[in-house]
């Protein structure tokens, strides 16, 4: 409630300009998000994304509203799903659960990893879409020994999650330049300037970007598996309504032409 009922005197209004400027500076520290390529309509990308998801994400994160059998609609057979994408004793009608308990997660990472079923919807913000955030986030990890996990992230500073894809991307360190803030020289500003590759990854940077794009596309699709059907159906509905509107317009004109 305190943010809502912040009591401000009219006298403070003069200071408002300065205050807003300070606000803007802290906003700038949030790195701009890269635009995630749209691949929700690309079955190969979704299948690759599903494979990456069950291998790299599902160890810690659940997708407890997503049923394995729903993967049929991205062109996979029950056999393919059962043999390539399911581990343990899960059945095809089950949802994507995780073996790690909340207590273990709390102990190992300090927090419970969020469920990923609708994560792309939840992460949308003024910064961009949820997909844009994930696409940027999964590509901006760097080694940081000051963090408990040894990892930090440019899009989400201080995150508790280590880089799950480090073997693909390789390990990198981030270089920062420290200099005075141009708008307030008394403040030292830490600006990101570039990465140093510490160990090579199994993929080139271009390949890695595409891998992340596929994974993000899968999560975007998983947030609403019926979204493509929805859009296809929408086209048909609107074509029908366009025709219906024409008909009702003619009907109305026919009746009203007698009204003088």
């Amino acid at each position, binding site marked *: *409630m305190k*943010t*809502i*009922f*912040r*009591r*401000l*005197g*009219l006298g*403070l*209004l003069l*200071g*408002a300009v300065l*205050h*807003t400027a300070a*606000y803007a500076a802290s906003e700038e520290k949030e790195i701009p998000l890269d635009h995630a390529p749209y691949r929700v309509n690309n079955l190969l990308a979704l299948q690759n994304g599903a494979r990456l998801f069950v291998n790299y994400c599902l160890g810690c994160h659940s997708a*407890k*509203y*997503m*049923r394995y059998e*729903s993967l049929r609609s991205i062109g996979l057979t029950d056999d393919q799903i059962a043999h390539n994408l399911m581990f343990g004793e899960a059945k095809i009608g089950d949802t994507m659960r995780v073996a790690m308990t909340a207590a273990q997660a709390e102990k190992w990472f300090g927090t419970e990893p*969020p469920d990923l*079923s*609708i994560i792309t*919807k*939840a*992460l*949308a*913000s003024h910064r961009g879409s*949820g997909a844009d955030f994930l696409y940027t986030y999964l590509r901006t990890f760097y080694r940081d020994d000051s963090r408990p996990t040894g990892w930090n992230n440019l899009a989400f500073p201080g995150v508790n999650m280590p880089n799950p894809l480090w073997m693909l991307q390789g390990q990198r360190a981030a270089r920062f330049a420290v200099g005075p803030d141009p708008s307030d020289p008394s403040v030292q500003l830490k600006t990101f300037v570039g990465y140093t590759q510490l160990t090579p990854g199994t993929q080139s940077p271009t390949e890695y970007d595409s891998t992340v794009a596929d994974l993000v596309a899968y999560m975007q699709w998983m947030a*609403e*598996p*019926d979204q493509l059907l*929805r*859009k296809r*159906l*929408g*086209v048909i*509905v*609107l074509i029908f*309504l*366009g025709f*219906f*509107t024409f008909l*009702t*317009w003619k*009907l*109305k*004109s026919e*009746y*009203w*032409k007698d*009204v*003088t």
Partner: protein
Amino acid sequence: MADQTLHGAHATPEHGGLRGWIDKRFPFSSLWSAHLTEYYAPKNLNFWYYFGSLSIVVLAIQIISGIFLVMNYKPDAALAFGSVEYIMRDVNWGWLIRYIHSTGASAFFIVIYLHMFRGLIYGSYRTPRELIWIFGCLIFLCLMAEAFFGYLLPWGQMSFWGAQVIVNLFSAIPLIGPDLAVWIRGDYVVSDVTLNRFFAFHVIAIPLLLIGLVGSHIIALHQVGSNNPDGIEIKDNKDGRGIPRDGVAFHPYYTVHDLFGLSVFLMIFCAVVFFAPQFGGYFLEHNNFIPANPLKTPPHIAPVWYFTPFYSILRATTSNTVHIWMAVLVAATLYALWRNRGKPARAAVFAIGGALLFWALATIDAKFWGVVSMGGAVLIFFFLPWLDRSPVKSIRYRPSWHRAIYVLFALNFMVLGYFGIQPPSPLAYAVALTCTLLYFSFFFLMPWWSRLGTFKPVPQRLVYKAH
């Protein structure tokens, strides 16, 4: 009035067969003619008059989609969030039903706001339509309650914290406040108990009230007949058969007319449902896709867009704003004293009343006055029929600068809405405060400004150009 009933009774021919059988037992034919084929509406109803029938359609959409949602939704704090995802994924066409219902909520407010603005500019609330207007205001209140209760049900972060903030407002009421808030929630925080009672209100209590009020709204309307963009009574000019010369039968003329309007509306509605159901986070907020967590307050809590103008007024009322209200109160009291300078008894009442209110403003927490301002911003609509003293009903025959006032009022409302979504900042506070003062000035000063200016002559007959 009498001749209309007579007319209906006389004009209805005796029917044979099934219709005759029914008519002997139920007044089907006379109801049909009284409310449709022989209910005469002004023939010049324009664009603004689509939104009445559209509101009924949206109400029907909400009730029908709501019934199907209730079949699969679980009003349980542990299951609610999951059951919504179950509807989205596992229930056949569940995603469509849910998006129709969530888009319908926003659509309801859009058509109602436009419908109310129509009433404002054409003076539809004025004699003899005061009761239609009051029923309408009650419908608006119910709609707000319905939307508020319904928003808790998905049990996301915004559902939970929005309900928490709004119920906490009641705790600002002196003496009974804290107990009242607990009584509303049924618990010390928003919990499973709250979810269950909000579900009952959302699904049974408020919809019943809404349907009853909508029925009363229409019965009152058919008693006096529709107003029109010229603000003239068509019943004052009838032909030999007692039919208004400027009226057309509601059915078929306005049924085909409104069918066209409905069709255009459905195109826009379906475009949202199928292509942008979240509407960029305005119809379904991003944070609400995170399950409710009582231990984690979101950094920025904003209600859904349709409440934000009133939320802005709430936020604009700080202890500093209360000082402005005090100054306004002193000025108003002094004015009342001067007006009643010859009547000492009345003047004393004003002086004592003013002093008591001043004392209340000075001692009670600003949060309470925020709640009063927000509530007042809604309730003030009830008094419009008596605040408006313009000699003509319609904006068409009022001075041009009156038009500017109505346009400014609408813009002011939208600016309030915009700043209600933004996180609090000194700039947002200054703007919201200015807009709040303008909002209330529009209503409280209406008895004065609505009489000023040069009014244009009102014609005898409707202005109508054949299509």
